[in-house]
């Protein structure tokens, strides 16, 4: 038998084996672990520092730095899909006619020897019982088949034959998920967008390859707001966005985490935020010799003349992180002091430490009195035309699992026969393609119901 199979047949058999399924699943499960312990999408230096040069080369060859997109991982997924498709075709073609025959028949001899059979006697006659039981069986299960025998009759009813297809629904849903993911990967994009308050754009750069993408509209961030709880933990991030089309305002909407904006197939999500550099601030300058105080608002790049024509001060700009003796002091303003006839020098003014410049012990000390904190909003912009396939896959998978595990094809059998003049023997049994324990309970229930009659 084994020898005389053609090569295509052998390939077909290879792909329709459950052994292949199990091996593929084992490989998928075990290799997936790598991606959770090895840093993903890091920079080469990070890998060399973490794992050393030798391991870094190995990671690069096996693409373990972007494992779930690696050729071999995708190959395993492809193998699983082919396996599922071939298996389903093979099994359905073999069992379709058995599952769905033109005419449903039953074999009384097989039901009479089932383990869960129950017998009892009744004083009613065969014909009365046959009529009564048929009504009950019809009500509880469905269409009843009745056959007369020499000294009585046998009846049969079934339900849930269709549930045998549940497993194919589950498998089809996996294919649908993979197709949806593929469509999303080919025709969709994901991009991060940083928009300062007041800024707008219609061009994005994808997260992975930095490819520019032109949107059919512009996004403008009017305002970003972050709210905190008393504990200091963030409560809400909100961006007020305006969509502009052909230069005209289309609409304005607030987005929050979990409340994205969806427009023309493009989704805009609130993902992060940060402080944008302020473009002006109010400075307080104290002349340490006279104790005179000068307060003035400056824009970035603007200069002021120090009291008594001692020199000039220029507001140079703001940096989000200022490092001072290995400590990160956070946001800091920078200015340049040029005293008349002397070389200019730069001074840092960290926001969190207003007395910082006093410690310099210069002639003038500077404090940033007031500024408008501006934010930028971090948006994730995506397009995923495959999402509906994925969602359909999700629904089918839940439905399929439910059918496969909790709905069974149940057959019920009742035999009635006269044993002597006054008594009738009744035998009840049944089988199900899964959950035999549940079936035994159902038979017991049916028997109590029949006895009550």
């Amino acid at each position, binding site marked *: 038998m084994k020898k005389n199979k053609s090569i295509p047949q052998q390939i077909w058999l290879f792909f329709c084996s*459950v*052994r292949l*399924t*199990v091996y593929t*699943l*084992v490989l*998928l*499960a075990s290799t*997936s*672990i790598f*991606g*959770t*312990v090895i840093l*993903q999408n890091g920079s080469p230096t990070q890998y060399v520092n973490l794992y050393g040069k030798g391991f870094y080369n190995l990671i690069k060859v096996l693409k373990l730095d972007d494992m*779930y997109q690696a050729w071999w991982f995708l190959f395993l997924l492809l193998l699983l899909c082919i396996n599922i498709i071939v298996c389903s075709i093979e099994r359905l073609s073999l069992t379709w006619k058995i599952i769905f025959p033109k005419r449903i028949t039953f074999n009384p001899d097989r039901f009479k020897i089932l383990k869960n059979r129950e017998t009892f006697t009744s004083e009613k006659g065969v014909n009365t019982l046959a009529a009564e039981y048929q009504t009950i069986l019809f009500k509880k299960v469905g269409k009843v088949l009745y056959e007369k025998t020499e000294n009585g009759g046998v009846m049969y009813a079934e339900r849930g034959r269709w549930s045998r297809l549940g497993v194919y629904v589950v498998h089809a849903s996996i294919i649908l998920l993979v197709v949806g*993911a593929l469509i999303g990967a080919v025709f969709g994009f*994901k991009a991060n967008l940083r928009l300062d308050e007041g800024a707008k754009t219609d061009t994005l750069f994808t997260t992975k390859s930095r490819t520019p993408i032109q949107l059919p509209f512009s996004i403008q961030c009017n305002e970003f707001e972050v709210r905190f*709880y008393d*504990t200091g*933990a*963030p*409560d*809400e*991030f909100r961006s007020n966005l305006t969509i502009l089309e052909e230069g005209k305002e289309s609409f304005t909407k607030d987005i*929050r*985490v*979990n409340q*994205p904006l969806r427009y023309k197939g493009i*989704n805009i*999500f*609130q*993902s992060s935020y940060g402080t944008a550099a302020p473009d002006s601030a109010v400075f307080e300058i104290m002349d340490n010799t006279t104790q005179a105080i000068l307060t003035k608002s400056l824009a970035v790049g603007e200069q002021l003349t120090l009291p008594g024509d001692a020199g000039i001060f220029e507001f140079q700009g703001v940096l989000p992180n200022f490092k001072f003796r290995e400590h990160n002091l956070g946001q800091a303003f920078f200015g340049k002091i040029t005293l008349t006839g002397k070389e200019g020098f730069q001074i840092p003014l960290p926001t969190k430490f207003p007395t910082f410049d006093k410690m310099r012990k210069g002639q003038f000390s500077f404090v940033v009195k007031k500024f408008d904190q501006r934010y930028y909003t971090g948006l*994730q*912009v*995506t397009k995923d035309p495959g*999402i509906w396939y*994925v*969602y359909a896959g*999700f629904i089918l*998978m*839940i439905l399929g*699992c*439910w059918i496969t*595990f*909790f709905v069974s094809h149940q057959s019920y059998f009742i035999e009635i026969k006269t044993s002597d003049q006054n008594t009738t023997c009744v035998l009840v049994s049944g089988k199900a393609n899964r*959950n*035999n*324990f549940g079936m035994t309970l159902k038979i017991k229930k049916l028997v109590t119901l029949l006895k009550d009659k």
Partner: protein
Amino acid sequence: MNSSFLLSTTTFIYALASVFYIGSFSFKKQVLARAGFWVIVIGFITNTAGILLRWVESYQMGYGHAPFSNMYESLVFFSWTVAILYIFVELKYKESIIGVFVSPLIFLAIAYASFDPNVSSKISPLIPALKSNWLIAHVIACFLGYAGFALAFGFSFIYFVKPKDPKSTSVFSRLPSWEMIDELTYQMIVFGFLFLTIGIITGAVWANSAWGKYWSWDPKETWSLITWFVYAIFLHLRMMRGWNGSKLAIVSIVGFIAVLFTYFGVNYVLSGLHSYG
């Protein structure tokens, strides 16, 4: 009375239930198992009350969210789901002795929540990402899944302790029949699998509405998928390759190790989107 008090009391009630079940098993006294069952039911009631009260308290504090937002709350809820599933199983299958393998799990989860100093029982506000109606559906589905697998894990042990010789007189010989253990393990895994599937899917739909990606190979996601694969292997081996007995029980145990890693390991060892609990 506050929720912390109720939940600590629950811990002791579950401990008592474990003692009753183990006592019933060791001394072959059925009456102790009956007592154990009722103690579990009482524990379940205080557990439920504790969770509800905590929910109310979070509203009183002005945060107002379902008590599923950190490790403490999830462990308490884990005990709750295992307890309710176990009560259902004992009522349906009329087997009380199996409680020996389950009641300690119920107790350990809530005890870990109460006694580990690293697990904070403070009610804290929800971070923006968690503010979604999907939170409740996602958490309930995942934990029902975990509970199914936990019970299957408990039952799988029976394969290794029950003597093969039917005439054996050891304490383990009173364990349910092989058929029953097989049925119980299978039903629990099937139940767990359905709910893990729902849990992963609700998580994916949620992620898509919060971050714009339904799947990002975050460690928690990946580990839940690994768990899903292991139980998929279990189901294929049992239904298509005819595996049973202790060979299959090992797969169920491996699956539960994956569950534990998904639940705890990812939070403590790896980092990612789920680092909050």
